[in-house]
């Protein structure tokens, strides 16, 4: 798995490429931690190249929901494949984490 980060105006974009599983989820966790340490408040996760997600990946997103709500940080996921989105839907996490279609939509949320 590969993580990329880029700043686009006020948005901090984290791109995930490949498989997000028990062996790689720590990299995503570190990328989000880094964003928080940099005081980023508008984080977009570009999932266009994310091919697989397991509970380890879901758990990383889950663990920040509370803090982000308290600290007014927005986290929006975009461009998920149907396969990846289905995994969020199994436990209803798609209702607790903001998921939109395109990166442009993510910027307007």
């Amino acid at each position, binding site marked *: 798995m590969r993580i990329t980060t880029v700043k686009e105006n006020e948005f901090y974009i984290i791109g995930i490429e490949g498989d997000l*599983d*028990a062996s790689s989820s720590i990299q995503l966790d570190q990328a989000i931690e880094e964003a928080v340490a940099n005081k980023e408040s508008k984080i977009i996760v570009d999932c266009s190249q994310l091919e697989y997600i*397991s*509970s*380890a990946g*879901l758990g990383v997103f889950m663990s920040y929901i509370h803090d982000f709500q308290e600290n007014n940080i927005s986290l929006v996921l975009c461009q998920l494949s149907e*396969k990846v989105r*289905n995994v969020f839907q*199994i436990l209803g996490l798609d209702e607790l984490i903001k998921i939109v279609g395109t990166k442009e939509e993510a910027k307007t949320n």
Partner: protein
Amino acid sequence: MNNKIKIVRKPENLKTVRDFVSTTLQSMSVPDPEINMMVLAVDEVCANRILHTPSNPSEAYNNIELEIQNDNNNFTFLIRDTGDPYDINTHESPDIRKLIAEKRKGGIGLLLVKKIMDSIEISRSEPYTVLLLRKSLKFV
């Protein structure tokens, strides 16, 4: 076709497990959405076995074996290793909102497995712990 695989119990080998399940189920003409769900369930169980079982000094005891059987679209995934038995069925299903409030990163893997599979059996046959995941599919 060989429906068995053996991997060394390491997280980086989960991809090999997923590819094996996916390829095997494709060869059995299972539709993609069902393949994706079963791949996830097997991955979760193997990850659980890898992360929560201490490694054994003997290399022979650090493997996970997986076998896939298909009897008229009744699928059985047999997962065997030498780790301690852990009864997935007595594992209390966590409340997602509670996990979020506690900022937990783990705890939902087995919940996913229970949602996807029809049944999960665990037994001990020395020196092995054997997990059987079953799923029946009805194709249109």
